[in-house]
């Protein structure tokens, strides 16, 4: 990874749908150089996937998913440690993100469901009952302000004077 790779990543993270011609022009490099860089970041797993960043809050239907941030306390297993237990958790499709963290608890898990009950059941039935889980603490998300560096509401309008020498 060098500076060019990082610049490519920054532009793709801003907008993954930019085409290669545009990216190559912006970075002042040949298109095939760019394509090779992207390919190698894809094959080495630096770029895992291209996805859409969705704002459920403005969906006009009622099927908005509900999210909770769940803190889990763990008593790690000898030899396999935290990773083996983690894999018993993150394989559930309703677990959208899963981090091992420092501090008062061990895992921070982001769980998604269609109702509060669904999430509550999932936490009590599937997570809290795991042998190594010694405690849980759930926080339902009330509002999303910012994700992946993008602010979700109040997109700034252009306040500049339209013409100025």
């Amino acid at each position: 990874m060098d500076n060019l790779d990082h610049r490519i990543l920054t532009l793709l993270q801003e907008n993954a749908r930019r085409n290669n011609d545009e990216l190559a022009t912006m970075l002042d490099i040949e298109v095939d150089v760019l394509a090779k860089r992207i390919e190698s970041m894809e094959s080495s797993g630096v770029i895992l996937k291209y996805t859409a960043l969705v704002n459920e809050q403005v969906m006009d239907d009622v099927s908005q998913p509900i999210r909770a941030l769940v803190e889990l306390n763990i008593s790690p297993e000898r030899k396999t440690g935290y990773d083996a237990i983690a894999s018993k958790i993150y394989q559930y499709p309703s677990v959208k993100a899963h981090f091992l963290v420092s501090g008062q608890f061990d895992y921070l898990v982001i769980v998604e469901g269609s109702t509060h009950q669904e999430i509550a059941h999932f936490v009590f039935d599937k997570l809290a009952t795991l042998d190594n889980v010694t405690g849980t603490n759930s926080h339902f998300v009330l509002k999303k302000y910012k994700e992946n560096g993008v602010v979700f509401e109040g997109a700034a309008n252009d306040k500049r004077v339209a013409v100025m020498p």
Partner: protein
Amino acid sequence: MTADFSQYLESIPSSGIREFFDLVMSSDDIISLGVGEPDFTTPWSIRSEAIYALEKGYTTYTSNEGLLSLRESISNYCQSEWGINYSPETEILVTNGVSEGADIVLRALLNPGDSVILPQPAYVCYDPLIKLTGASVIPVDTSKSNFVPDPKAIESAITDSTKAIVLCYPNNPTGQSIPRDVLEAIAKVAKANDLWVLSDEIYGELSYETEFVSIASLPGMKERTILFNGFSKAYAMTGFRIGYICGPESLISRATKIHQYSALCASIFSQMAAAEALKNGRKAMEEMRQSYQQRRNLFVEGCRKMGLETAMPAGAFYCFPSVKSTGLDSVTFAKRLVKEARVAVVPGPVFGDGGEGHIRCCYAASTEELKEALIRMEVFVKGLK
């Protein structure tokens, strides 16, 4: 009342471009590449410092020169950025933007009958501010030397009354910079003819491939150079109205005398925000610069593809495509572009000699807007053929 006003003011024609500006301001639904400022909002750490200052009750005057702590930061910044050593006590004045700095330095320096060399196209404030002092402007057209001032042309424009050379590089409107060897040749001319150099370096930090060289850093130049800089462009702080001038005590103290009466001091919370910009703003500034550079590449290529000859800018966030191939003059092109393609640019002649046949496009706009503007411009240009 008698209609007897300042004769120097009367000698400055009111902007012939007013009508065009009114046209743009009254048009809806346009993409504007006619702006003169960053599209970034001031970085939050800087804004929050201004808010903090207000919350804590920093609502007072400061010393005329500006907060000493800010002048100390500016002094360190000039040293680390450009290798120039200014005394915070005697060689730096905090101003209400470069705009005020230009006004007070010109007033402190010039007498009626003096003349000042002004390579053009250049930012619009210098010509009228020079004339307001009763001095005259000697324009040097840079369009024949790729918008980089030619030291020989400067030298041959010098007369007995010439007192100073104004330089604004990286340049608004062209985006061009002066390469080091040319800058050295200009410095030689200034020294040989005992001229002041007033160097507006407000876009200095926004230099792309080549590192910016301040003329004040060249040997023997500090004592004859006034450096104008500010926070408007590099730190996206236009609304804060904050800048500074650095130079020999003789001229800074005299400019301060005017500033003391006409401005008193720069706003204290803007000064505190500016201090934060120098302390913690570097990363944000570099990210903004990188983003302008990428958008420059995109926009310049688009202009070239549609057949408008465009020099690659070295800095700032403007490019200056030629519209000569369309057969239209700059103002006609710009007016029709607003009406027929709903894209606003600024006609080159606004910036003085050498601007005819060009338009200034500011690429501090989102890539989506730039791409849409390029499509509209291309349809318009193709339709002229």
